[in-house]
């Protein structure tokens, strides 16, 4: 499974005075099994891009190929695309509507036309995958849950469709640190499981650096950088000029270096930072 995006363009309000180019000639490839992070300033075209990947928006020109289907081709089956590509919007808890959690999670699988046993099994699996207790929660009203639980139920609603590509648009926005961590652990677990590709949009550079194999940077509708976290975060000054920042540990390393401690600055995760610090401080002791 891989995704190829070729030169897509998208324009909002075409032909009207407030015409704006939302995507300009965006091209990239996502390979089998990758965890992709997308970063960019608010209004840089991230959400527009995501909606193209599962056919909610059509590009003005260009081509998107998911697996072996061209989803931009006329007459492409939308249901087949949505079965393949699951999209979790920002604040997905606002899309809950059913009487019970189990019914809400079953909405997606039901739309796929699966039989009842299959649906029940998927619902149970999805709810457990997002870290909730199925027996405990299935009969509850989604509106009685806490914010973090609602969020997880909404994500389960997409996971239950068993997409091969799962897109998460700022899944941790507005959550407390505990729930934040749990959602990301969940994303990692799902990626290790059967979901092949995960695309994560986040404003939190720590999460992106920690989880991604590949990082895409959007700015004013253009894809300005695409590479491994190492490659992207090495261009810190450029990122800052776009209103983005670096992971906390990278900033720390840069500061330490500036103050005379001999540490590498291409450090993006806590683990790497720990090792580098031991090495640097160890060296000093030897002297």
């Amino acid at each position: 499974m891989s995704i190829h995006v070729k030169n897509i363009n998208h324009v909002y309000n075409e032909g009207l005075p407030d015409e704006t180019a939302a995507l300009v000639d965006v091209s990239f490839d996502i390979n089998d099994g990758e965890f992709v992070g997308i970063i960019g300033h608010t209004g840089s075209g991230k959400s527009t891009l995501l909606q193209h990947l599962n056919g909610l928006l059509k590009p003005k020109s260009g081509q998107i190929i998911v697996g072996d289907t061209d989803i931009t081709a006329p007459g492409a089956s939308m249901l087949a695309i949505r079965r393949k590509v699951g999209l979790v919007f920002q604040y997905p808890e606002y899309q809950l509507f059913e009487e019970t959690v189990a019914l809400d999670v079953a909405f997606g699988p039901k739309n796929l036309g699966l039989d009842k046993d299959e649906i029940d099994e998927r619902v149970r699996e999805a709810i457990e995958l997002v870290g909730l207790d199925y027996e405990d929660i299935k009969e509850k009203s989604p509106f009685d849950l806490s914010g973090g639980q609602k969020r997880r139920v909404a994500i389960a609603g997409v996971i239950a469709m068993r997409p091969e590509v799962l897109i998460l648009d700022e899944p941790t926005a507005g959550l407390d640190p505990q729930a934040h961590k749990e959602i990301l652990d969940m994303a990692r677990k799902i990626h290790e499981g059967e979901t092949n590709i995960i695309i994560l949009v986040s404003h939190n550079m720590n999460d992106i650096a920690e989880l991604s194999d590949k990082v895409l940077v959007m700015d004013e509708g253009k894809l300005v950088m695409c590479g491994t976290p190492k490659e992207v975060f090495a261009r810190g000054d450029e990122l800052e000029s776009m209103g983005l920042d670096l992971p906390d540990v990278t900033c720390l390393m840069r500061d330490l270096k500036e103050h005379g401690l001999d540490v590498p600055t291409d450090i993006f995760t806590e683990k790497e930072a720990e090792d580098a610090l031991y090495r640097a401080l160890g060296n000093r002791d030897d002297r």
Partner: protein
Amino acid sequence: MIRDITLGQYFAGESWVHRLDPRTKIIVSLTYIVALFILHTFIGFAFAAIALAVVIALSKVPIKFILRGLKPIFLIIVFTFVLNMFMYKGDPLWHFWFLTITKQGLYKAVFMAVRLVLLIIGSSMLTLTTRPISLTDGIESLLKPLAKLGVPAHELAMMMTIALRFIPTLLEETDKIMKAQQARGADFESGNILNRAKNLIPILVPLFISAFRIAQDMAMAMEARCYRGGEHRTRMNAMHYGKSDAAAFILTILFVAACVCERIFIA
């Protein structure tokens, strides 16, 4: 953003008519509507039509735009015309089975249709040249004397303003929810009417919940800023009657006088 809301049919412009005080425009429109009921001959209507044409020319709203606004009410006009044509007793012109068209009936039908068209275009000139927000401000100001009789003028106007303000917000919300459910495989385009109505539930339930949430947040935000209703409130853009308003009122008085003369002197 709130200034850009166009409900129904506001036509953005900078003409003399657009710049009139909203209160003037409301009073003039109401007067015009009453005047149309004073008139009782086609000569009078021709006069009213000319007056209206002058206003349209001054407002620089394209005729096409105005006629487009007539489209939805076209059926009502036809219906009134047909009813009047067949229901009036008098000298028969044409007869078939139980249907009879009389001379008086035809006259009455045309008369009513003309009155209706003038009525609709006349009142739509108000909404075409006044922003909805100014319109509610104007209504509030005009209703203020009635507050002594217990009419909640400020509250009514505030409700209208908030309703207008939230149309785009709710549209945006609807779009978001629709997309989220579509991403879960919901289909809003196919199936019979019953199925389609049922498919709306996944949109309507979250939309209602959102609306309540927004309303609650809004009420809280207003209270946090010490909102206390209409007493002693001043506005950022105070309304003033100017010279053009005086001119508009004088012209309106002359117009009404002419209409009354038509009623009295033309048989």
